[in-house]
């Protein structure tokens, strides 16, 4: 059981992700540079937050075309677990591993605040440890977190239980208050909130602990 964190040149949450994974999920965490074409043998791939290639174009658009993403897609197709957090979520929609798109926040401003969330599906590999917990709180920090998909897609996401997290108070205009979704097969998750920053009571944030515990369970 091991994990890889992909490092784009503008990733800035890679260290936080490595540290949360190693502390709460698995000791075996590799950092993989964006120009690699192969992944080490891992069970989980995490695309961290940040500004992968500066995001001067659409967020995540260039990262989706970087050499390592072919290997990440293959890993996902084979059923391997993939997590995209914030910029990682944007990369996953740009790669079409997840449906929809992340547009600029409705307020047109970057927004960093603690977001109360509803855990909508505790049956996924990413959320099992939230069982019995209807709600949690995790920080958001993004400019482009306004989730959009057409109604048919949104209905399907709801029908198939693919909505993992919803905002209690929609901060960014996301369709149907969506904060995080999985793919249909349930092995790929994207979310805008940052669970890797919410694993330490001293920082006042612990809402992400159950997320990394869920991953630990899924990998064991």
């Amino acid at each position, binding site marked *: 059981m091991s994990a890889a964190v992909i490092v784009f*040149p*503008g990733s*800035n*949450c890679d*260290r*936080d992700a490595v*540290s*949360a994974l190693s502390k709460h999920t698995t000791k075996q965490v590799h950092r993989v540079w964006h120009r690699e074409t192969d992944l080490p043998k891992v069970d989980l791939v995490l695309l961290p*937050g*940040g*500004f992968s*290639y*500066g*995001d*001067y174009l659409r967020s995540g658009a260039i990262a989706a075309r970087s050499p390592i993403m072919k290997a990440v897609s293959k890993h996902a197709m084979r059923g391997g677990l993939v997590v995209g957090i914030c910029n990682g979520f944007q990369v996953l929609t740009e790669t079409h591993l997840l449906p929809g798109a992340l547009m600029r926040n409705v307020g047109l*401003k*970057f*927004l*960093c*605040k603690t977001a109360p969330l509803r855990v909508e599906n505790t049956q996924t590999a990413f959320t099992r440890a939230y069982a019995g917990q209807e709600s949690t709180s995790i*920080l958001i*920090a993004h*400019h482009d977190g306004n989730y959009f998909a057409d109604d048919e897609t949104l209905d399907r996401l709801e029908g198939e239980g693919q909505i993992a997290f919803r905002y209690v108070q929609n901060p960014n205009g996301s369709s149907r208050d969506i904060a995080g979704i999985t793919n249909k097969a349930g092995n790929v998750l994207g979310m805008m909130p*940052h669970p*890797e*920053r919410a*694993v*330490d009571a*001293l*920082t*006042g*944030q612990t809402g992400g602990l159950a997320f990394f515990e869920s991953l630990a369970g899924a990998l064991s």
Partner: protein
Amino acid sequence: MSIKTPTTLEQAQALGLNESEWAVILKRLGRAPNETELGIFSVMWSEHCSYKSSRRHLRKLPTSGDCVICGPGENAGVIDIGDGQACIFKMESHNHPSFIEPYQGAATGVGGIMRDVFTMGARPVALLNALRFGAPEHPKTRALVSGVVAGIGGYGNCVGVPTVGGETNFHAGYNGNILVNAMCVGIADTKSIFYSAAKGAGNPVLYVGAKTGRDGIHGATMASAEFDDETEAKRPTVQVGDPFTEKRLIEACLELMQTDCIVAIQDMGAAGLTSSSIEMADKGGVGIDLNLDKVPQRETHMTPVEMMLSESQERMLIVLQPGKEAQAQEIFERWELDVALIGKTTDTGHMVLHHKGQVVCDIPIAPLGDDAPNYDRPWVETPSQPAIAHSDVADADLTKALQTLMGCPDMASKRWIWEQYDRHVMADTIRASGGAADAAVVRVHGTQKALAIASDCTPRYVQADPYEGGKQVVAECWRNIIATGANPLAVTDCLNFGNPERPEIMGQFVRSIDGMAEACRALNFPVVSGNVSLYNETAGAAIPPTPTIGGVGLMGDVRTAMGFDGARAGDSLILIGKTDGWLGASLYLREIEGREAGAPPPVDLEDEKRNGLFVSDLILKGDLNAVHDLSDGGLACAAADMALASKCGVELCAHNALPAAAWFFGEDQGRYLLAVTAEQTDSILALAKGAGMTAMPVGRMQGTAVTLGDCAPLVLDLLAQTYENWMPDFMEDA
């Protein structure tokens, strides 16, 4: 014009040099400089780079102390924080560019200060910003706030360094000249700190980072002149920031610093390639030869003077150990940054520039520093203001006054601003803006230690009395750090004033430094880095004198970090420090009576120190539930902050001798409000008495309103609305 063509006095004057400075250049060169050489002299001797009006006065500031590893003179200050670790920090202004082009001006201010810190080997871990805008009703203010805040966020958020604190004030005195002061704090190993002295001849000079363009040419000169009606035509002198390049530059430089390749390193900030190469050569006692054809260029047909004066961002100059060129270049290429060997150090003591097969500049380096102008500008004492007598303050509805103060532009919540900043990336932020503490608290990664960081200045005090105001700036910063439970270690300063050629402005500068120096000495709080920004004037109107301080403190165990959100119903409130009810230059007088008048509160530095160390001990013993320093708006506003953060009402008692307004809103210095359990109240009061301190019970946490003596209660919900709504209402009321 040929490169050999001598320039004239008139050309020199157009670049901001005066007749006597021109004469020194002629004497040293034995001839008139050509265009490139003149350009180099003009930026090196600009106020911004040479500190020609300020240098002799800055010497008065104490710069040494037990914790100091490197004081002023390098890119940033370095202090020891134990366990083989150092904290490297500095604050810098980007006022002029931010007024002209708020987004890019503020963004590049953040970028520049980060480079000053990582240049020395530190990973940046925290950013703060001290912002002063014009009056809210001024037609430009809203757009400036919006642009500056977006620029700060746009840069810091992308690079991935948390913006954890700062301050924002509004005053008509900044209508034509806002202040954007950015501070960066980084952490390094004491064993790998990098300096800028390029010792040794024959070493290769490596250029890395972004390409050189025509942006920012003469930015340093612009920052050394007053604004006028033509100012906005200067937009082309403002640089454009690219935080993605900065991020890669940080990672690449820190990686190179793990090797033994580097002799010296310096970022290209103000006056770009000129100041970085000259400062490195000058400090190393060597000459430098550069081939400008090798400089990576973004535009075609750039002239030597354009390349030398460009302030394109995200560039560094590195002097390498010979033979390490390939190893260094490989790192920068991997991060997809431009990298080029552009010259070498020499034993000539001259700066020689080559361009298209010709020598376009050959000047001795030492005189640029040694002969740099150093003016003893005439100054006059600021006329002293009378103290405001209690009888001179009218009776008022104090419940209403409290509500007005808590909702006034300087006091109201700045949530609208700090929610646009990523305050938590790097996952070590313990307390940030909105985190109900007097200073930001950031854990040192991988340890139990934390830094407490605060920035402070009360310009209305400095304006009324530069000397007392200067003391207060330092004292308040020290107090803010104490109130979090940290041990204050050292400061950086960012001194923003008007035109130093006017004696009354120079008087503000000189006397506030005297005050700061005295407070820094008394509180053992040395200045380790800083920046001076003069000529903050538009059409002859100077800004209020604004010497901003950024202080850093250390706490050994982050679990002891204290805030003002931990007060609980039933807690007693104890006031530490003497209260005379000082209303001169107070927020109360300004906001309630519309008067900016009177002498500011005096600062008794002995009291300040004794009170602070007493509170610090109580925090470390774990005796306190909440601590807040008293500053703007005095006791009532401190208690209101505590009530809002702790979500519990407060009942404050009236004073038996002082008039109510003076007691509740006086801004006497050196004071703290403590929340303690009812059982501990007596023992803490006894302890204070034993230590010869002034301490008194002033009320308790109770109910759901803030109540001042026998005035009508101000319900917390209403107070919260008033406090939270001002800024969004202001910004969104387009």
